[in-house]
């Protein structure tokens, strides 16, 4: 029995030590879209340094998860690429702080002969009406993201005018999985939220416009990652949101300008 008491006391000592070490430290949490996670990972420690006594945790989970968690008071800030809907927030009003614009780039496998397409053709390819690449017999393999993806919403509403993507589209759970799948699959086309032209794939120019990190304003397709907090949020949460939305180095992560 002695060992059991020793174990119990050790656990209690460790627990009380942990509590003691954390006492006086407040914790904030940011939950949601992973598209700007890399930027947040750099910006949040800077805010923590300016606010001793505060720790901030960052988690993914997707835009909808972030909105639900903030609405229910389980997270301090949500990051979302898509506007909140009533069924997610339970009609609770949220304050929006736009981070900026994040390009949605169309990528294709290296075997795809096309470098540029008209938006009409892009629409037909993504909707599954064109099953081979123009002027070739290379079959088109459409890659998409889950319904909760902000990039998918941009593609659906800005390119397809509200139509659905091809019912045969292959679903990839993350930006990384999308990139890997398009890179490895001959004839594949997909889309990414990114500020950098990724290696190993080609980007498609649409209607004569090609995405370039040097002149992102010329590009027409972008998502608008936005921070959301509850109207009764603490001053620190509001301060954190404003801080994150105003860092100059956002551009290094592809986030540019305002969201308007």
């Amino acid at each position, binding site marked *: 029995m002695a060992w*059991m008491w020793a174990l119990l006391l050790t656990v209690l000592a460790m627990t009380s030590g942990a509590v003691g070490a954390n006492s006086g430290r407040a914790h904030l949490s940011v939950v949601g879209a992973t598209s700007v996670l890399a930027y947040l990972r750099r910006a949040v420690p800077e805010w923590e340094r300016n606010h001793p006594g505060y720790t901030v945790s960052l988690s993914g989970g997707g835009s*909808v998860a972030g909105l639900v968690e903030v609405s229910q008071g389980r997270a301090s800030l949500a990051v979302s690429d898509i506007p909140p809907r009533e069924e997610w927030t339970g009609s609770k009003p949220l304050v929006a702080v736009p981070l900026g614009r994040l390009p949605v780039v169309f990528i294709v496998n290296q075997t795809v002969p096309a470098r540029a397409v008209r938006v009409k053709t892009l629409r037909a390819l993504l909707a599954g009406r064109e099953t081979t690449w123009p002027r070739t017999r290379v079959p088109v393999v459409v890659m998409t993201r889950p319904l909760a993806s902000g990039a998918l919403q941009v593609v659906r509403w800005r390119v397809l005018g509200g139509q659905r993507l091809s019912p045969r589209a*292959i679903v990839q*759970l993350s930006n990384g999985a999308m990139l890997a799948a398009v890179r490895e699959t001959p004839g594949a086309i997909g889309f990414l939220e990114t500020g950098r032209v990724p290696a190993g794939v080609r980007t498609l120019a649409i209607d004569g416009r090609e995405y370039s990190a040097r002149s992102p304003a010329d590009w027409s397709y972008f998502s608008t990652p936005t921070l959301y907090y509850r109207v009764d949020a603490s001053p620190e949460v509001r301060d954190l949101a404003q801080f994150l939305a105003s860092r100059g180095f956002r551009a290094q992560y592809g986030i540019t300008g305002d969201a308007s």
Partner: protein
Amino acid sequence: MTLRSGRDRLPNRMAMGAALVFGLLGSSLIASLILGGWRILGEPRALANLLSNVWDPLAGHYGIGPFVVGTVVVSLLALVVSVPLALGTAVVVSQSVGRWVKESATQALNVLTAVPSVIFGWWGLQMVVPWVRTHAGGPGFSLLAAGLVLALMVLPTLALFFTQALARVPETYREASLALGGTPDRTLVRVILRCALPGLLNGLFVGVARALGETMAVQMVIGGNTLMPSGLRDPGATLTTQIITDMTVFPPGTRGHAVLDVMALILMIGMYLLVRLSERWGRLS
């Protein structure tokens, strides 16, 4: 005396407490799934809607037929590929090799059962999907790729169970068969495999349960397509992969979440039936 008896009872009480917590957690999980799914199950024509082949949650169509088919096909394919290989491995390990090889092989199988599923998925993306694309055509992301990855995942588990089942057959049975003039092959088929059958089936049910429940590795290679697949080369989805794909878009309380609860319930019922079958055959063995 009182203090001593109190101390003596402590481990029992702790064990009972832990069991109670476990029981409560399990019951609350099942209760939450039933309550969550009731929103759909209580609707008129719920079964017809659920068993249809159209999954378009934004338009209110929640047919889970393609996922049930995907789950069954991928699991069956995995078993068709893995059972003969696992049985062959088990026969070799338990019958024909020296002690050192036997122990090494068992350790290797134990290690393989502990490999995280994402590693199998990653391997599937690198090796199986391109192989399927080259040899079977199509995009490579398919039920076939998922079945092959799953086969490799369940293979070590099946081989371990099969090895244990074969090891439980008394050595005297084999010796008696050989002494009566039976060839080694005949002894294997007519005596050893027959005697080990309940244990083999027990292992098979555990393998099926693992195949049914696997999510991550399958999600990485199956394609996540929600249409009814028309062949093994087609992309598709299983109940578990669709839950993980759509769970972030349907928060608790929504109709879509209720359908995901029903899908989880179906899986749990399937698992329960498999466990019961496994217990039944285990008792017989």
